[in-house]
């Protein structure tokens, strides 16, 4: 009950049991999420995983079939108007007005947000400056590059100083330089205390920007945590030891009972949760009399985790 009346909640987004289907096609199959204030939360998943559908539901564009959601303390269903007042949405495709200039686009948003005219002008020139659009301010977006259009779109979203921003694949289709610029902008927003729900199909993007990541596959969250936690999820953070003969392998396997052995390759894989610390420990336990041919440390990246948790289907699709 309190969650609905307390409008400075610690939880920015709280979702439970979210479901959505189009006809017989299930898009969201029971999604639970909790995003804290000031956090960057990334929804990571392949095309068609349901990322955009979550954003569209949470930004009041479409109703969910089932589930409860509160956004900044407001009930999504009953207080959609209040939700709209505190969120900002930048979609996958730049929703800018192609017949208006960059500046006119911003001023239009200012009017729709009912900002006083002085504030409207100040905020618009501030954003044009910040997003390096000053020179293009009096041109229509027809002549903009993809990155510029995306920046104008985000600037329009920021006119109203939203406390929660949905960024739906903000860098899809951008060149590497524009992507870096976008990342920089997002990091600055985070420093200002804005909460961000980001969707992306780029693992690197989630790794770079997000405090927490939820991996989405076929409408379900298959893994959730900080990037580091997720990487540890994989039975892949390990030290790989190669031996010259079966006897050495035997001996080492007895000393390192937590390891898994591969008799064919004469390889032992030892889980490595603590990085360098456990390496020192491992070598000490092996002692001097076991001859190790080769040693390598394997840290999984998010990609490994992603493929591990989504199964091989995703891997095949990707390649």
């Amino acid at each position, binding site marked *: 009950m309190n969650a609905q009346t307390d409008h400075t909640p610690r939880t920015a987004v709280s979702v439970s049991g979210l479901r959505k289907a*189009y006809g017989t096609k299930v898009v969201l199959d029971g999604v639970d999420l909790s995003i804290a204030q000031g956090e960057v939360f990334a929804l990571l998943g392949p095309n068609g995983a349901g990322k955009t559908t979550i954003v569209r539901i949470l*930004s*009041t*564009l*479409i109703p969910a079939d089932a589930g409860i959601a509160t956004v900044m303390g407001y009930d999504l269903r009953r207080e959609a*108007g209040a939700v*709209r*007042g505190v*969120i*900002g*949405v930048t*979609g996958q*495709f*730049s*929703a*800018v*007005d*192609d*017949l*208006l200039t960059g500046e*006119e686009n911003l001023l*239009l948003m200012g*009017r*729709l*947000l*009912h900002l006083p005219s002085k504030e409207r002008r100040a905020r618009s020139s501030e954003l044009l400056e910040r997003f390096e659009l000053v020179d293009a301010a009096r041109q229509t977006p027809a002549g903009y590059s993809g990155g510029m259009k995306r920046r104008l779109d985000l600037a*329009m979203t920021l006119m*109203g100083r939203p406390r929660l921003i949905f960024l739906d694949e903000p860098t899809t289709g951008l060149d590497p330089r524009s992507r870096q610029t976008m990342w920089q902008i997002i990091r600055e927003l985070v420093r200002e205390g804005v909460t961000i729900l980001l969707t992306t199909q780029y693992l690197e993007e989630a790794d770079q920007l997000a405090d927490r990541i939820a991996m989405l596959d076929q409408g379900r969250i298959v893994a959730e945590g900080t990037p580091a936690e997720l990487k540890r999820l994989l039975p892949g953070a390990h030290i790989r030891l190669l031996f010259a003969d079966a006897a050495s392998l035997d001996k080492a396997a007895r000393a390192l009972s937590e390891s898994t052995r591969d008799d064919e390759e004469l390889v032992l894989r030892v889980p490595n949760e603590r990085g360098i610390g456990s390496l020192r420990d491992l070598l000490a336990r092996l002692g001097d009399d076991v001859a190790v041919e080769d040693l390598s440390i394997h840290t999984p990246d998010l990609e490994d985790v992603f493929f591990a948790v989504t199964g091989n289907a995703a891997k095949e699709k990707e390649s």
Partner: protein
Amino acid sequence: MSALTFAARDSATMLRREIKHSIRLLRLLIVSAIVVPVAMLLLFDYVLGGAIGQGLGAAARGAPYIDYLVAGILVMTVAGGCGPTAINVTMDMTGGFVDRIRTMAVTRGALLAGHVGVSVLRMLVATIAVTGVALLIGFRPKASVGDWFAVLGIIAAFAFALAWLSAAVGLVTKSVAGANGSTLPLSFLLPFLSSTFVPAGSMPAGVRWFAANQPFTAVVDSLRALLSGAPAGNTPHVALAWCAAIALVSYLWAQASFRRGTR
């Protein structure tokens, strides 16, 4: 501020936006809204008018064909505004602007109010321009001042109805090309299948019934009677009833489509 003030403010903002759009697209709009109907006027009056005028018989009331034709051309001028309106709405829908607005605390109906308001404005300006050209080339109306007001009222009502209809069509159309195509029946087919150029009574039996009873004929007949100073009978009432019905159904359709958004 109250919801009503917000609604007025948001609608005014959207109206400004649409006026700006119209100014940016002025040359295109002048062609589709004024040049095309004027070309129809000239073609039908100069090229085809001789033969059609002779064939009209009593329907012409002894006046030249142009006096019969102008009422129809005015209705075609209004209908010609449907395409641009539907296209503008479709562009907002497919370009993400509708979705952007729907995630903001903007009055729900404001965007469509802006589109419809400016659409009606464009249609009225175009009909005034076309009327001017008609007068220059020999159109001699016999309407009283009161009749002129009635003409303006009916044209405005018809424009309002068609603007809502175009907005609704624009909302449910998936592409800009589709939006233009979807309004062709309105701007082209229905005028021909009405009393725009010739009396419905002169058409073959199957078409005749449709032509005699469809809204374009009601509007054209009422305008024609008023402009020629003839007794209009109940035609203005029938025309206005049609306009009200079209506007209401289209309004409800458009609002529902807007709420649904792009799914």
